C-alpha cells in the first residue's frame, strides 16, 4: 500500500473490450495495474478487478477455461466487478442462460424496454444511495454515472446504490470483500474516479 492506496492491482483480462480504459483510469489514480490472464496471476494481488464488456456466456467460459472461476471464489483480496464483470458475480444470468460465479445471490435479468424507454440502457443516469458504504465516500447527490448495458441485477440486500430505468436495478453492490458497479467508473468522470479510488483504499471487514 502507498498513501493508503493499494498498488498491487490485478486486472483480469476476460476478453472484455474495456480492459484498456479501466487500466488507464487506474493510471490516472497513480496505479499501474497488472493484466492477469490466469489464476496464477492473482497471487499477491491486494485488489482484483474484473472488468467486462461483452456477453455473459463467453466471458464465463473463458474464466472457467483459465481456472479463474475457482480462483475468484477462493480469493481473499477485495474484488470489484465492473459492468458485465459485476453481473458475473451473481448466481446466474439470463443472457445465454449461464451459471455465473455465485459470489452474490440473485439472477441477472434482461432489461425491459417500452415506448420512451430504450434498451440497451445507454448514458448518464443518477445513483440513489441505499445504504452507507466506504465505497461511496465523497459521492454527493445528485451523482451521475455512465451506464451501457442491456441486462441488470435486481435490488437485493447487497445493493448499496440503485438506479432506475423503467424498473429500479442494482447500480452498486457490496457484500464482504465483493463489490460491483454496473456502470463504468472508468468513464464516469469525477464520480467514477472517486469510486475507483474508494475501492483502492477500501478495507472490508
Amino acid at each position, binding site marked *: 500500500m502507498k498513501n493508503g492506496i493499494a498498488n498491487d492491482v490485478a486486472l483480469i483480462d476476460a476478453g472484455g473490450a474495456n480492459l*484498456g480504459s479501466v487500466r488507464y483510469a487506474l493510471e490516472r489514480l497513480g496505479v499501474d495495474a497488472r493484466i492477469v490472464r490466469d489464476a496464477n496471476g492473482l497471487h499477491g494481488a491486494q485488489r482484483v478487478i474484473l472488468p467486462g464488456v461483452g456477453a455473459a456466456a463467453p466471458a464465463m467460459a473463458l474464466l472457467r477455461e483459465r481456472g479463474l472461476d475457482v480462483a475468484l471464489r477462493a480469493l481473499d483480496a477485495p474484488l470489484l466487478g465492473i459492468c458485465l464483470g459485476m453481473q458475473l458475480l451473481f448466481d446466474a444470468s439470463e443472457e445465454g442462460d449461464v451459471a455465473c460465479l455465485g459470489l452474490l445471490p440473485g439472477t441477472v435479468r434482461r432489461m425491459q424496454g417500452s415506448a420512451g424507454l430504450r434498451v440497451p440502457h445507454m448514458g448518464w443516469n443518477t445513483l440513489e444511495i441505499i445504504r452507507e458504504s466506504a465505497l461511496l465516500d465523497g459521492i454527493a447527490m445528485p451523482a451521475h454515472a455512465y451506464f451501457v448495458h442491456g441486462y441488470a441485477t435486481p435490488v437485493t440486500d447487497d445493493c448499496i446504490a440503485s438506479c432506475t430505468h423503467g424498473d429500479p436495478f442494482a447500480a452498486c453492490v457490496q457484500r464482504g470483500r465483493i463489490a460491483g458497479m454496473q456502470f463504468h467508473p472508468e468513464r464516469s468522470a469525477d464520480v467514477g474516479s472517486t469510486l475507483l479510488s474508494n475501492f483502492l483504499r477500501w478495507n472490508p471487514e
Partner: protein
Amino acid sequence: MLSRRIIPCLDVRDGRVVKGVRFRDHIDMGDILTLARGYRDEGADELVFYDITASPQGRSVDRDWVEQVARVLDIPFCVAGGIRSVADARAVLHAGADKISINSPALERPVLIEELAEAFGVQCVVVGIDTQREADGQWRVRSHTGDPENMRAPGKRTLDWISEAQSRGAGEIVLNCMDSDGVRSGYDIDQLREVRDICHVPLVASGGAGIAQHFIDVFRDADVDAALAASVFHSGVLAISDLKQGLRDAGIEVRL
C-alpha cells in the same frame, strides 16, 4: 432518470480536428487531445471522433491517437471511420474506445453489424447514417460522405435501413441529416420524429445545431436520446456548460 446527452463530434483528418460546411472545405480546428480535454471539462457527456479520411481512402482508423485519447479522457468516446471488420473494431476498442460507429462498410455489407454485435455486444455497435431528402420526398441514405467526389447513393430508404440495422444488432443510431448539416438552422425535426417512431435503440440527432434553442427543440419535439454537434461547439458560439444549464432550465434532464 436517464440524462439527455450532449455529444461534440470531432472530425479527424491526419491526426487533427477539422470542420467543413456540408462536408466540404475542411478547416483546421486544433489538436485532438486539447479539444477532447476541453470538452470534457465543459461537461460534454460523450465524444465522437470521426476519421473522415479513413473510409474513402479504404483504410482503417489510425490507432495511436485513440489510445492517447483513452488515457486522458474519463468520459465515454466513440470512434468512427473506416471500420470494416471485427479485427478493425477490436483494434479500436482495445486501444480504449468505448464504442465503434460504422457507416459505409455497413451499407456495403450489412452482416458486419451482426458480426460486431456478436463479438462485442450490441452496446458497442453504433450505426451512423447519412441521409438526404430526394425529389420524391423520401429520405435515402448516402455513403462515403467523407469525400464529396466519392459520395454514393445506394438507393436505400433511410427508414428501411434503420429497421434493418436494428434487427441486425445496432445498439445505437446516429442520424446525420445532411440537408441541415453545417448550416446551423436547427436539427431536422420532421425526419428525426419519423425515425424516432421506428427506432427502439438510443437515437442521436446530428446536423444543424446553431443555437441553444435547437437542442431544446430536438429533445422536446423529436425525443432523441442525444444531440451531436460540431461547428457550434468548435467555433465557441455555444459553450456546453451554458447549453446544459439552459436545457435544465427548460425542464430537460441533463448531467450538470
